[in-house]
């Protein structure tokens, strides 16, 4: 089955139609809207499979279909669709994971009064996300990028009656928009330099040799080459969307949205869009830009994992782990391994969606309790959820050989180790491995083992099949997907790089790194078990302090406050912003307002003086003309049957007086 790039728009269009159906259906049409959403996305999945098979037939090709959006004299703004392995893999993943999450939502959101709206927004999101993936124009990509941001805003704030959710939605939107501003400026600069925003256009696209050569030879600005500057501006967009340091602050707050939203948007798909963007424009990125990307990625990987250690909210722990894993992906881009980044993106999408849906299953069962101090002992009560959640965790931690995360993380470590640039990202990634193993062990121990520490945890029970089936399917892929890209047979990386041949090597070649990372995983799990697993029996109450908090109270509190980033931003940007706003407001009312009042007084004063002058002097000269005016005015008023209206007369008189002034003035 093959698919022409010309028809690629169908993939995003199907969910868009579902969203339109959702918007036009009354509130009562719950099953219609949900059904349309699921069917549309499932159909998109099948078309994506066709696209994938087309792309894999010739992985080096970039099939495109371009068209003009609008023209501006010499400027033509063109958009287009693009089909290559990167697009195809991503579409397949998004539609597949998306469909499962939609199905899960049937159960999770069943009692919500805005169920219909939820599916409408989800479909809107899916349409925008898929549009972003099939875009062959950075502008179209940006357009869809903004629309996914909008969908994310709507869905984070879905329960806007909670002030925290409304605030989180706004924070997410504004924070990511800071990054988007960089993206937009990079886009303008690129358009100005390359004259096009099409990625591939038979040799004239910005990612093709001609444009890249021209950019490479362009002048430097402030010590940066133009290409580096553009690359870094585009990266700003990725920093915002993918929760990279220093704009990571919105992502944990985004967990205020319903859990399926966290799974789909804030774990599996949208937040990975930044990584996708960087992989997409990878040919544009200069060594300077890559260096920055690698370091930001490494900092983020470390930061996320560190903060996750001291969080109590089940979803926030997972959110920080997402931040951390996105850091790994970005790091992989930075060290020159975009295919490893996408491999990790794909495996992460499955196991993180699994973890979030697992968390959703727990939260649903425990009556919306998501504080791990209140949970515990769920492994017995929710066996299926526990088993799948454990698989997801092991994939995330990177338990050797059988779990997808192990292989994709190994690919990243391998690339970071082999890079010619700084080795800081490599060491940061290694530390991140230990921390990841540690906080996940804590998460599993606290949630599923020991005593149920609250009424909700004690009375939890397994959810219905509509919710557990997606877990099982995702768990299968959390294991299986890793085998697409093992060092022995890195099929996925080869296809993403446009190669038809797969050059694997024996596991023994990089065995040192394999052993090292496995050892670090063991270390992290061991430490986590020592600190949390062994003390579980003793802690039967939710009020029992966290063992780490006992061991290092101040560090723990600082981590718990997420390294005070929010406070820092509030104290700096927040204060400056408030100051500017208040100052401008004051200035406008008092200073400008004052000047205007003063001028008005001055006007009144001179008006009095002028009137006197008029009466004594000029007026006499006007009298004759005024007579004529009065005559015409009267004729005018007679034309109306009703009362001649004062205002209209005023208008006519004013009109003529002006003409007179002009004649006198012009003649002078």
């Amino acid at each position: 089955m093959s698919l022409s790039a010309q028809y690629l728009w169908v993939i995003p269009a199907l969910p868009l139609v579902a969203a339109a159906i959702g918007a036009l259906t009354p509130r009562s049409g719950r099953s219609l809207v949900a059904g349309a959403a699921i069917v549309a996305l499932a159909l998109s999945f099948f078309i994506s499979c066709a696209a994938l098979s087309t792309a894999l037939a010739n992985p080096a090709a970039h099939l495109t279909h371009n068209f003009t959006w609008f023209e501006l004299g010499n400027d033509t703004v063109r958009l287009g669709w693009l089909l290559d392995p990167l697009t195809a893999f991503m579409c397949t993943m998004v539609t597949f994971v998306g469909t499962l999450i939609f199905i899960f939502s049937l159960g999770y959101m069943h009692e919500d009064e805005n169920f219909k709206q939820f599916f409408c927004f989800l479909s809107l999101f899916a349409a925008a996300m898929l549009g972003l993936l099939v875009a062959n124009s950075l502008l179209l990509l940006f357009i869809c990028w903004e629309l996914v941001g909008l969908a994310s805003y709507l869905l984070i704030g879905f329960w806007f009656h909670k002030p925290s959710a409304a605030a989180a939605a706004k924070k997410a939107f504004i924070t990511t928009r800071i990054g988007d501003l960089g993206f937009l400026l990079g886009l303008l600069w690129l358009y100005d330099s390359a004259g096009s925003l099409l990625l591939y256009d038979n040799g004239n696209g910005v990612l093709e040799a001609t444009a890249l050569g021209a950019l490479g030879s362009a002048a430097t600005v402030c010590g940066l080459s133009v290409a580096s500057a553009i690359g870094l501006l585009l990266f700003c967009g990725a920093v915002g969307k993918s929760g990279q340091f220093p704009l990571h602050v919105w992502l944990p707050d985004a967990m205020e949205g319903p859990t399926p939203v966290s799974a789909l948007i804030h774990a599996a798909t949208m937040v990975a869009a930044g990584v996708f963007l960087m992989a997409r424009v990878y040919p544009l990125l200069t060594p300077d830009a890559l260096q920055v990307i690698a370091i930001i990625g490494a900092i983020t990987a470390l930061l996320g994992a560190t903060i996750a250690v001291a969080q109590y909210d089940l979803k926030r722990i997972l959110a920080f782990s997402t931040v951390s894993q996105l850091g790994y992906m970005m790091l992989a881009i930075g060290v020159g391994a975009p295919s490893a980044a996408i491999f990790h993106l794909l495996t992460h999408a499955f196991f993180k969606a699994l973890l979030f849906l697992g968390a959703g299953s727990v939260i649903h069962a425990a009556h919306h309790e998501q504080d791990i101090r209140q949970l515990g002992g769920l492994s017995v009560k929710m066996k299926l959820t526990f088993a799948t959640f454990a698989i997801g965790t092991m994939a995330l931690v990177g338990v050797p050989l059988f779990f997808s995360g192990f292989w994709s993380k190994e690919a990243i470590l391998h690339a970071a180790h082999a890079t010619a640039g700084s080795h800081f990202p490599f060491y940061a990634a290694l530390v991140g491995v230990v921390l990841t193993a540690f906080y996940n062990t804590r998460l599993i121990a606290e949630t599923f083992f020991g005593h149920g520490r609250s009424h909700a945890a004690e009375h939890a029970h397994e959810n219905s099949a509509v919710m557990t089936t997606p877990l099982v399917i995702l768990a299968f892929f959390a294991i299986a997907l890793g085998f697409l890209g093992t060092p022995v047979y890195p099929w996925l990386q080869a296809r993403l790089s446009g190669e038809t041949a797969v050059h694997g090597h024996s596991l023994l070649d990089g065995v040192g790194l394999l052993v090292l990372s496995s050892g670090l995983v063991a270390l992290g799990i061991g430490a986590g078990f020592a600190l949390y697993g062994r003390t579980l029996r003793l802690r039967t109450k939710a009020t029992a302090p966290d063992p780490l908090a006992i061991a290092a109270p101040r560090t723990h509190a600082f981590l718990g406050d997420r390294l005070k980033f929010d406070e820092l931003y509030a104290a700096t940007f927040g204060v400056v912003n408030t100051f500017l706003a208040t100052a401008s407001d004051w200035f406008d009312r008092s200073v400008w307002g004052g000047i205007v009042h003063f001028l008005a007084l001055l006007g009144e004063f001179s008006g009095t003086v002028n009137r006197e002058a008029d009466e004594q002097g000029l007026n006499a000269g006007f009298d004759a003309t005024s007579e004529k005016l009065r005559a015409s005015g009267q004729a005018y008023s007679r034309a109306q049957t009703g009362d001649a209206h004062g205002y209209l007369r005023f208008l006519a008189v004013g009109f003529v007086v002006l003409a007179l002034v002009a004649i006198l003035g012009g003649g002078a």
Partner: protein
Amino acid sequence: MSVRLSAHFSVLTPSDFLRRCAANPSDVFVAAAMNALPFTIYVSFAGALLALAAGTRSHFAARWIALVTALTSFALTLLAASSFVPSPGLQTIIDLPWIAELGIRYHLAADGISLTLLVLTGLAATVGVLFSWNIEHRVGEFFALYLILISGVFGVFLSADAFTMFVFYEIAIVPKYFLIANWGSPATREHAAMKLVLYSFAGSALVLAGLLWANAVAIAHGSVSSFSLNDLAAAATHFSRGEQIGLFALVFTGFAVLAGMFPFHTWAPTGHVAAPTAASMLLAGVVMKLGAYGCLRVAMPLFPVGLAFWQPTIAALAIIGIFYAGFIALVQDDFKFVIGYSSVSHMGFVLLGLAAANSTAVAGAVLQMFSHGVIAGLLFAVVGRMVYERTHTRQLADLRQLPLHRLLPFAALTFVLAGLASMGMPGFSGFPAELTILIGVWKTSPAWAFFAGGGILVAAAFTLRAIQVSFFGSTQLSPVAASASEPTHAGSPLHYEPITLAEKVGTALLLAATVYIGLKPDVLLDWITPALQSPLMQAALKGGSL
């Protein structure tokens, strides 16, 4: 004088019109459609008189007269648009001597830029009537003034003679005073109306002084007295650099006052807030565009040397305006002030596009004029008509106590969509407009584009705040009941008059316009771009590079 005036208003008789059409038998329809454009002015004026006459007896009749009048002129603009053949330069429709001694001519013409704004005016006029349907106080006079304003606006956009344009400009300004002073919010209307008129007249005075000076200088340089834009531009090529700089400053500033350019913007928020809904819609929707149009049509092509000199200043003021007004909008307690300042901020983009002075940026600026006209209309419709006239408060602190999204779901949805459009979300007209402006501005100065880009962020911040606080601040259906002595049974103690059909139709028209242009900006750009290729415009735009 009066004889001459009346003669000119009767010159284009229907038979005359038909004769002119017949002169081009090959393309009668096209000619007819273009030649019918001046009737937008006359029809509006006639409608005003009819509404005034009818208003004393029947409010119903006055409303319908106003609606039919506005619809007729809207239809005339659409008719012209449907058959419009874009070409560089103004296509003359009528050109008659008016004040022969001074070379003042009643010269009406149109190009793609004027057509864009004519369509906007027709749309805004129609929708404004729909949102004034509930006016009960001196209905006839209200609609008479309203339609006179519209007729003046049509006249400005059609004028190819600077003096004719100035006269229409004045005709548009005067009714604003009465609309605000008589039908505005009682607390501030007199102050606001006075402030607005003083500002406007100060601006007009500058424009008039500039035009007369230009005319005098042209005569001094040996030209025949004329106010035709073409003649003035030709004469101005002989002006000294100093004269060009001085004249540009006068004329541009004069018009820019009405465009809400910082620091001459303070009339706009107070005026918008005090005005009745339809007047706010027109004020932000089309009257502010008059100023920008004057800058583009008169100041820039006539004095290109002056433009080149003042470019950085205008850009700086535009950028300051974008941020300054945006920041102020962020902390307003009055819902309407938020929108008022947002208008100033958005007009900053228009002025920045003009300052960049290249075809792309200016095309974007014209697109933004259209876009902002539609979006500001929507925002004021929601705030002024749908919300204020039902809740009788515009204080955000009060509104956040009300579960408005439940009480007025249609208003909430409209405001969310208009807000998204206002913050430049793709899919709405603001996005291609701001994008085009930024692409163009980048060509002139990347630094300007960098700064201006930040303004988009501020717009997102104040718009989101307004959306959340106003409509989604509370979900409690009975906030008042909690404090009231007697909790009301069965759902909401608050009940608002449902959104009327007129409001829904008006909203639908504006939303359709912003979405349509958002998806297909080429509809307007295909008119605007050729207009910028005229020699007159190119004289101004070739100075685009700094």
